[in-house]
Every structure is written in structure tokens, then in C-alpha cells.
């Protein structure tokens, strides 16, 4: 009784922006292409991207891709690979115009050109003055992009497998990728999708944190599959945060609230920012406020039953100001925190937003791993793009509006690489290994037969609390060391999760247990990578090592899951055509 096998030229896991853009290249090249997705593609998390997509079109103000490149290198705190960054910024105008030709409804100027809005971190002349570089479709840029790409894919005959969850990568004895196993939720059956090339575009994994803006689907399935298949993860210590998300929910409270006079309080009712920043107080820079908030929690002055948040107090502003100037915030507080800020303070906590690290790739979207003394040996048949991939363009911190750009530029680039690989190197399918699919079957069987284990939700919450407390915005050696121990204990509990519902059809409990298998690998990678990095760079702010240390730490982390070990590889300092942008102090 073998596992049923279906064959495609290319299989793409993930139906968000990157997966759809890659699929389009493949289908339009006449290749038989399958996209598998846990949810309907237009309900991928790409819809949450509002800000826009950056490109140096120069429609509003003079702009050059070299300036965009400089901003991205600086934003990455010199951890980004400059060849990949040059590639992305040079390709950006073409990528946006292509989306326009696909029918994406960008906002326009009176002269008919695409309108561009300002966005933090984007400048002219290498940091001199702000520039309007972000192209947007109202506040629905991600949504418009997804719908546009989905329609194009339907036209190009891409085959969609919706409500399918990929379980494991299949590699043959040479280490080449020859397919994936996947669970069809509707039947509960497991299939092998046999392919000449596989692309992961599985998005972020913000759900490892207790406080996250990420939708529930963002469980980093691709990264978990990589770890189980012996592919390392790159730069997993770098996560981007917002300072004030509603505790327990993740919905963001804009920083404008503190501008209007909102203040932060700890469990003692103390306005603690006066202690950390006597002059600026609650209006200190975003990362500084975030770290102060988390330090209050770590030192036991957090609020609530778990002492794991602080309070944002607005009631002293009076009902009129709150109703007039902050109506949206009042609505969010009432809906997601259950408090009316006219009467009560809002529980808030620094909230995870974006994963800079991921599956190691080059700018062609090929997955590259250390092998035989070469740090970047291609894994035949395996590609990755979008938030799950680490090209690395975002380095230690992502610049706003570069995420949507990443999706389309590297989605297309990976798609092109796959077409070339399939047409030039893969006239036919490689054989599946004899044990293909057994790992997935064993994982599901373990889950079905487990007795005396723990509830998935309980273990997930334990993981999320650990990651939030130990690898949040405030990091120091002692705390990270504790975190590494604690998360390894949680990982043992994940091995014994239990589900009550053993049915096959649309068993969401099973899906959530399988997702937790993926999340825990990412949580381990995050803690272990962060504990080792003894410097502060971008989003990794280490209290014991408060400065960037280029001499010792300008290098990418690679985490290997089998023995939970780390290795490092060099940052690419050679752009494709322009001069290297040497490191500078990152001030704004």
C-alpha cells in the first residue's frame, strides 16, 4: 500500500505573493506547475501588507536604484548581501511596471504615472533627504498584488491545490530535492508530489512569539520542513518588532497615541519611561521604548496574571480628545483588549512583525548550503523566495516596503531559475527514494497513537511565552542562555503532543499539531542563534554587547537542526556592478 504519487514539473509550496509570482514564470514557460496552499491563495498573509512596494521610478522626485540600494544596505545594518540587494533594487522599477501591466490598480499621479508616497528610511543621495519611493494601491497594496497575480496564474493554467498542507521535503540519496509530501485536508490523505523542482514560498513564522502581528497561518512550515530535511536556516536571530501591540492579540496601536499624550505604566502604576529616558520619556525612539517595556516585564513589574505586559494609559486625555483624535484606537482597544481607553488603560507589549532570516538562498532563488568546503553549494532542485527565504536582502533589519518588492523580484528570479534548471538539467524526473513519505506517515501516526501527552495549545503557548520573554526586543546573555534551556524543554514536550480528534476529514487539530512541529524548529533556531551573537546589529539588540562588531560578527548565522549547532558564512560584500558600500555607524 504505497503513498499515492502525483507528478509535476514544478511544485510550489505557498500561494502568497512570492509563490504566485514564481508560478507564473513556470506556467507561462509551458511547465506543469502546482501551487499548494493551506488557504485560498488570495487569503494569504500578503493581503496584510498595506504600505506599498518601493521602486526608484522617480515619478514624484528624482530617484536612482543606487540610492535605494544604499538605504537597503544601511537598513540591513550591513548584514545584507550586496549582490542580492543590488539585484533587487535594480529590478524594482521593472517589477512594478510589470505588475502595472498585469493590471494591478496602483494609485496614480495626474499625468497618469504611478504615484509614489514617502516611507521611513527611503532617501535621496545616500541618506541626505527623504524620497517618495513607495508605490501603493490605496491601503490595499498586498491585496491588489495577490489578486492580480492569482488572475494571471489562472490564465496561465497553474494548478492550485487549495487546503493542502505540505508536510516534508523529499531528498534523494544525493541530497537533491525530488518532491514534497502533502496532506489533503478534505480527505486527510497524504500524497507525494513528485517534481523536477520545488520552491518554498511559505512566508513568515511570527507565530513563534506570544505577541505577533502575523495571521494564524504564519507557522513557518517551509522552515520546519527544511530543518527536518537537513537544510540549515540563516540569520534566525533577526526579527522586526513594533513597540505597542495589544497584549494577547497582536493588533497594533499606532505610535501616534503616545504623541497625543498617552503614557506607559508598569504594575506599580509608575510612568517608567521617565526613568529610562528622562527627557523624551514616552516619546523616545521606537526600539528604546520597546526594550524599556520588555525590561519592566523581565524585572517583574509587568501587569496581569502572568505579569507579561505593561499599560498604555489614555484616560487623562479626556473622552473628547480620545473620541475626536483616536477613534480607531478606541475601537481596537475595545474589540481586542476588552477595555475602553476612556476609562481604563490598554495592555500593550512589543509585538513581532517580520522575520528577516530564513532558508539560505542566492539572488537567483537557489537554496544554497555548506558542502565540501563551499559555503554556498546549490541544493539541486530546491528553491525559495519571499519571507521564508534569506537572500539576504534585509540583513539585520528590513526597510519598510521592501517586503512586497522581495516577493515579486525574487519570486520571478526563482521562477526563471527553475525554468532554466528544468529545461536544461532535468529532462526527466529523478527517482523517488525508497522511503519517500515515510517520515510524514510516521509523524502523523505518532500523533494519532500518542497517549498521555499534552494538548497542542498548551505547548504552543509555552513556546510562545518563552520566545517572547527570552528572544524579544530586550536581549542579554543571561536571559538568552535561560531561553535556550527553556525552549529545549518545550521541544521535548512538542514530541508528545496529543490530539483528541483522530478523524481524517478536515481535522484542524491535526493540522495545528503539525504546524507546531514546524514552529518549534524555528523557535529553537531563533534562541540558539540569538544566544550566540555577541553584538548588537539591527533588530538584534544585545544589552551586554551594545555595539555592532564588524570585525567579529559581520557574518551570517547558519543553524543546523539535527544537532542544534551553528556555523557562519561571509556576508557578500561584492555587488554585481557597483562599488561596495562600506559599513558606517547607523544613525538617522
Amino acid at each position, binding site marked *: 500500500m504505497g503513498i499515492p504519487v502525483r507528478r509535476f514539473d514544478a511544485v510550489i509550496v505557498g500561494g502568497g505573493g512570492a509563490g504566485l509570482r514564481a508560478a507564473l514564470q513556470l506556467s507561462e514557460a509551458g511547465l506543469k506547475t502546482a501551487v499548494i496552499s493551506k488557504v485560498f491563495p488570495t*487569503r494569504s498573509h500578503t493581503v496584510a501588507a498595506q504600505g506599498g512596494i518601493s521602486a526608484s521610478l522617480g515619478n514624484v522626485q528624482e530617484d536612482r536604484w543606487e540610492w535605494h540600494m544604499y538605504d537597503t544596505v544601511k537598513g540591513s545594518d550591513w548584514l545584507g548581501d550586496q549582490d542580492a540587494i543590488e539585484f533587487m533594487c535594480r529590478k524594482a522599477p521593472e517589477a512594478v511596471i510589470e505588475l502595472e501591466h498585469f493590471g494591478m490598480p496602483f494609485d496614480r499621479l495626474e499625468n497618469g504615472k504611478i504615484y509614489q508616497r514617502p516611507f521611513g528610511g527611503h532617501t535621496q543621495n545616500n541618506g541626505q533627504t527623504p524620497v517618495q519611493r513607495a508605490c501603493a494601491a490605496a491601503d490595499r497594496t498586498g491585496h491588489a498584488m495577490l489578486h492580480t497575480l492569482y488572475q494571471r496564474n489562472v490564465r496561465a493554467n497553474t494548478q492550485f491545490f487549495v487546503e493542502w498542507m505540505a508536510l516534508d521535503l523529499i531528498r534523494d540519496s544525493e541530497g537533491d530535492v525530488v518532491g514534497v509530501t502533502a496532506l489533503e485536508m478534505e480527505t486527510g490523505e497524504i500524497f507525494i508530489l513528485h517534481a523536477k523542482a520545488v520552491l518554498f514560498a511559505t512566508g513568515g513564522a511570527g507565530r513563534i512569539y506570544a505577541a505577533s502581528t502575523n495571521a494564524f497561518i504564519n507557522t513557518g512550515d517551509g522552515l520546519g520542513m527544511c530543518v527536518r530535511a537537513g537544510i540549515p536556516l540563516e540569520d534566525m536571530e533577526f526579527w522586526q518588532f513594533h513597540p505597542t501591540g495589544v497584549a494577547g492579540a497582536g493588533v497594533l496601536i499606532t505610535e501616534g497615541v503616545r504623541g497625543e499624550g498617552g503614557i506607559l505604566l508598569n504594575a506599580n502604576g509608575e510612568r517608567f519611561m521617565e526613568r529610562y529616558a528622562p527627557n523624551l520619556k514616552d516619546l523616545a525612539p521606537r526600539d528604546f521604548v520597546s526594550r524599556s517595556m520588555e525590561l519592566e516585564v523581565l524585572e517583574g513589574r509587568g501587569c496581569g496574571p502572568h505579569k507579561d505586559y505593561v499599560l498604555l494609559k489614555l484616560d487623562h486625555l479626556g473622552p473628547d480628545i480620545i473620541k475626536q483624535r483616536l477613534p480607531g484606537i478606541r475601537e481596537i482597544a475595545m474589540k481586542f483588549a476588552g477595555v475602553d481607553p476612556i476609562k481604563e488603560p490598554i495592555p500593550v507589549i512589543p509585538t513581532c512583525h517580520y522575520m528577516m532570516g530564513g532558508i539560505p538562498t542566492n539572488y537567483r532563488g537557489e537554496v544554497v548550503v555548506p558542502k565540501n568546503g563551499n559555503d554556498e553549494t546549490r541544493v539541486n532542485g530546491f528553491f525559495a523566495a519571499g519571507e521564508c527565504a534569506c537572500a539576504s536582502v534585509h540583513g539585520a533589519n528590513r526597510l519598510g516596503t521592501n517586503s512586497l518588492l522581495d516577493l515579486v523580484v525574487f519570486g520571478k528570479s526563482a521562477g526563471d531559475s527553475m525554468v532554466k534548471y528544468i529545461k536544461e538539467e532535468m529532462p526527466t524526473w529523478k527517482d523517488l527514494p525508497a522511503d519517500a513519505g515515510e517520515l510524514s506517515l510516521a509523524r502523523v501516526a505518532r500523533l494519532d497513537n500518542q497517549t498521555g501527552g499534552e494538548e497542542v495549545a498548551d505547548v504552543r503557548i509555552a513556546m510562545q511565552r518563552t520566545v517572547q520573554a527570552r528572544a524579544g526586543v530586550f536581549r542579554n546573555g543571561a536571559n538568552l542562555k535561560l531561553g535556550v534551556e527553556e525552549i529545549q524543554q518545550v521541544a521535548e514536550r512538542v514530541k508528545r503532543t496529543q490530539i483528541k480528534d483522530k478523524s481524517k476529514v478536515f481535522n484542524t487539530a491535526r493540522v495545528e499539531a503539525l504546524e507546531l512541529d514546524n514552529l518549534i524548529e524555528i523557535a529553537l533556531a531563533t534562541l540558539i542563534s540569538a544566544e550566540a551573537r555577541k553584538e548588537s546589529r539591527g533588530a538584534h539588540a544585545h544589552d551586554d554587547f551594545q555595539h555592532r562588531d564588524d570585525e567579529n560578527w559581520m557574518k551570517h548565522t547558519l543553524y543546523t537542526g539535527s544537532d542544534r549547532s551553528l556555523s557562519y558564512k561571509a556576508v557578500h560584500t561584492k555587488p554585481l556592478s557597483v562599488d561596495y558600500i562600506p559599513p558606517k555607524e547607523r544613525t538617522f
Partner: protein
Amino acid sequence: MTDIDPIEMKRIRWRSRRGLLELDLVLERFLARRFDSLSQPQLVAYRELLDLPDNDFLDIVNGKADLGDPALMEIIGILRTI
């Protein structure tokens, strides 16, 4: 109107996973508190709402827009206050 059987109810639960966190949170609450006591017509209405694009759905839940169909608005009314 087709009857909604227990398997269809499980499918609807899964389709309540969305691309936007705000919707995930509202629908999670709805599933926990109200879903099991919905009538057949209410289940059909909820299933229809799940076909909305996420951003439109959230705008409606947030009261920034309405729908013409009273059966759908009845469910929206619950989602707005839950």
C-alpha cells in the same frame, strides 16, 4: 440551500483562518462562542461571508461598510459585537 453536515462545519472552521490577524481574532472568538449554536440558515450565511476578500470582510466587521443581504448582516451584527 444545502444542509450543512458536521464535515462541512469542520471545513467552515478551517476557512475561518484568514490572511489578516484581526479577522483571525474575531472569527476565533465567534467559533468558540457562537458557531455551534447557529441555525442552518445562519451557517449558510456565515459560509457565504467567508468568501469575501479579507480586506472587504474586515471593513464590514469594523462597521466601515455594510452588505445588502439581511441574513448576512445578521451574522455581521454578531461579529461586530463579539
